[in-house]
């Protein structure tokens, strides 16, 4: 064995094969946590490089190394692209791990395998949800183009991502966007003959064909999700926030029209068509609802939100859309402002604290009832990023004095579920990729110091999505970070099951056919 024997460490050299020890890295802090694993920000001791370590939990006694992890590793090992997260290596924990009672564990691998990823500062949802954040048109084009480029690369290489959503799109401070969390991804063959599970893709981003029960599908499923994200970026909030599958389909039909054999040949033969078929005729209203979008954006969005997957635009064709070739052009990623790190998990937590702060304020009758919603982009072209920085939440280089690094008391009540309704309900498996105390970049106040006393406008404690934000609901809620904490077994708390019911699905069989349990909205 090239790795160290138990008790010894081989910190210095990488074996020519086999895996290095996790001790080659110094864990800086846990930045995400779920029932199914943790994500740490860590520094490679030898090089000083900052990485993200995603732990693969090995707690399924019956079927060994999770097949979802095998899929993810297989896929990530073959994808090499600037818009796809890079799996740098896999490391194991040396020596016997201790179990909960502190007894040495005979199986040194149990709980001791980590995927090492390049470190990314933000995820798209976390970034978009920053109070006052407003993306410029050129910036949205820039992100969209990178998203489509990465996805096109996956599709050409016959990989379906199957969980495209904002929190799985990681963004670094160079403005680069990378697809992450391939825990649900799998290879496909072009003939679409294989039966695949239809219980994939977070509900709000799930295409109608999956909701109608198809098991034969292809890259078009990812393109629907891209359409949802695109509309969300322009609109300022998610466009299909369904709370369960029937409602999800209904929301889609309300916007995109009820499908029939004319616009979607074969739809009436879909497995669940009869259960979900629209009860009344509905017209397509995309152009009407989004009439404030610019023409080219609307044109592209229409093609992405096409009900019939066979007619939906491909990633390649989308990249050729007028939208990306008209003024304002997509900006250079490097020209984008640098923001202090933010991940959905983190924004969510800030909101939670904000809520708590307001609870207190309320008691003192000081509440400012102000709702938080994302600001839609400024539609005018021209002054590309000048407007990117309007909000009270300045980018890293803003003038606010940095907050001292070190333990961040504002996060004193960190990962425990806090009650209360809200868009970002607490969940047992907060998956986010969160850095509460990123001292080095602690400027901007976003690091935690600012809330309550800082320049932040109080965020509404009310759910920005109206009545949908019930406790525990909302696919955003449990925030899988892009590093996919939940990946091995996938059942993240909130959105896929009952929130707070963490552990309910633990150890469930991880074969793909059983994934549906984990999305058990209605169960």
């Amino acid at each position, binding site marked *: 064995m090239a790795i160290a024997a138990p008790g010894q460490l081989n910190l210095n050299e990488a074996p020519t094969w*086999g895996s290095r020890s996790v001790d080659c890295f110094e864990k800086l802090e846990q930045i995400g946590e779920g029932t199914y694993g943790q994500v740490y920000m860590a520094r490679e001791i030898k090089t000083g490089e900052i990485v993200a370590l995603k732990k693969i939990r090995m707690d399924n006694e*019956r*079927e060994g*190394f999770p097949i979802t992890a*095998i899929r993810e*590793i*297989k896929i990530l090992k*073959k994808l090499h692209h600037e818009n796809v997260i890079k799996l740098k290596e896999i490391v194991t924990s040396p020596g016997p791990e201790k179990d909960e009672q502190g007894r040495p564990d005979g199986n040194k691998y149990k709980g001791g395998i980590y995927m090492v990823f390049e470190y990314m500062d933000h995820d798209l949802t976390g970034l978009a949800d920053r109070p006052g954040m407003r993306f410029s048109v050129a910036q949205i084009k820039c992100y969209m183009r990178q998203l489509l480029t990465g996805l096109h690369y996956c599709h050409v290489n*016959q990989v379906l991502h199957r969980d495209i959503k904002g929190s799985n799109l990681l963004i670094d401070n160079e403005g680069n966007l990378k697809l992450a969390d391939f825990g649900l991804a799998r290879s496909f063959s072009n003939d679409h003959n294989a039966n695949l599970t239809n219980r994939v893709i977070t509900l709000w981003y799930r295409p109608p064909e999956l909701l109608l029960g198809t098991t034969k599908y292809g890259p078009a499923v990812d393109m629907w999700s891209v359409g949802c994200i695109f509309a969300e970026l322009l609109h300022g909030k998610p466009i299909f926030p369904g709370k369960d599958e029937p409602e999800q389909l209904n929301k889609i039909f309300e916007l995109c029209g009820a499908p029939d054999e004319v616009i979607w040949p074969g739809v009436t033969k879909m497995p669940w068509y009869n259960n979900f078929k629209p009860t009344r005729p509905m017209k397509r209203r995309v152009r009407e609802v989004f009439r404030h979008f610019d023409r080219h954006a609307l044109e592209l969005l229409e093609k992405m939100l096409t009900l019939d997957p066979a007619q939906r635009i491909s990633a390649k064709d989308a990249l050729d859309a007028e939208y990306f070739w008209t003024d304002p052009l997509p900006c250079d990623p490097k020209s984008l402002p640098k923001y202090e790190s933010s991940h959905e998990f983190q924004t969510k937590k800030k909101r939670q604290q904000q809520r708590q702060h307001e609870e207190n304020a309320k008691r003192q009758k000081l509440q400012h009832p102000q709702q938080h919603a994302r600001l839609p982009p400024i539609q005018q072209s021209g002054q590309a990023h000048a407007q990117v920085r309007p909000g009270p939440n300045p980018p890293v280089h803003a003038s606010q004095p940095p907050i001292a690094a070190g333990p961040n008391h504002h996060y004193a009540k960190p990962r425990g579920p806090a009650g209360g309704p809200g868009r970002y309900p607490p969940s047992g498996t907060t998956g986010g990729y969160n850095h509460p105390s990123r001292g080095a970049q602690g400027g901007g106040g976003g690091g935690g110091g600012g809330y309550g006393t800082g320049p932040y406008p109080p965020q509404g404690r009310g759910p920005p999505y109206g009545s949908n934000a019930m406790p525990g609901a909302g696919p955003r809620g449990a925030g899988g970070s892009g590093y996919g904490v939940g990946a091995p077994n996938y059942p993240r708390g909130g959105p896929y099951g009952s929130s707070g019911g963490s552990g309910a699905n633990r150890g469930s069989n991880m074969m793909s056919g059983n994934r549906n349990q984990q999305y058990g909205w209605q169960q």
Partner: protein
Amino acid sequence: MAANFWTSSHYKQLMDQEDVDVVQPLDRDKGITLEDFKFIKMQMASYISKLAQHVKVRQRVVATAVTYMRRFFVRKSMTEYDPHLVAPTCLYLASKAEESTVQARLLVFYIKKIYSDEKYRYEVKDILEMEMKILEALNYYLVVFHPYRSLVQFLQDAGMNDINMTHLSWGLVNDTYKMDLILVHPPHLIALACIYIASVYRDKDTTAWFEELRVDMNVVKNISMEILDFYENQRMVTEERINAAFSKLALKP
């Protein structure tokens, strides 16, 4: 673009024959020769096939499992890692990697069915523990390319995709997994070598077709010779000879 053979880890991991033909020091100490080593691997490849028939997985899974097993023993000694555990575990892992998952307990059930001998019986926990060691030894490179896909394409291209030729050449490809060819040569060349042998055997003139392919015919012919040599040697191998190899392995140092 990645995800084709030439940019794959499989391609980068192709080895020279002399690096494959190395008996680990611990095994050598037990008197295991290169020939013994090959016999044991061959025997384990057929063990994997036999198990695969019971659990009903595709040939592709078998091929991947055998490849894992052969890669594993380039790096690990049989003294430390019992081939009778490594082989079924490779099948277990390959079934996951090839999306045809087989439950570990099912595998264990058939292991017990095949081997009445106590010492070859392993339990689920043994397989799961070995799985991790195999993953690590393979450095988590799990994607393996096989000759089958190119075989079908080549036969079609050559207009030789009749049942007869397909059957013969497919069977030849299956037999190549009794050797280490998959660790040494690109899969499409193995496929071509099998087509070459099959066409000679069936008296089909493929010279013109091969010429148009612009592949190095010397390599194809060398692989073909290796395969034919293997068949030739096979005829002389007796069961006693194979048992002798295993009994050396069983020796306590």
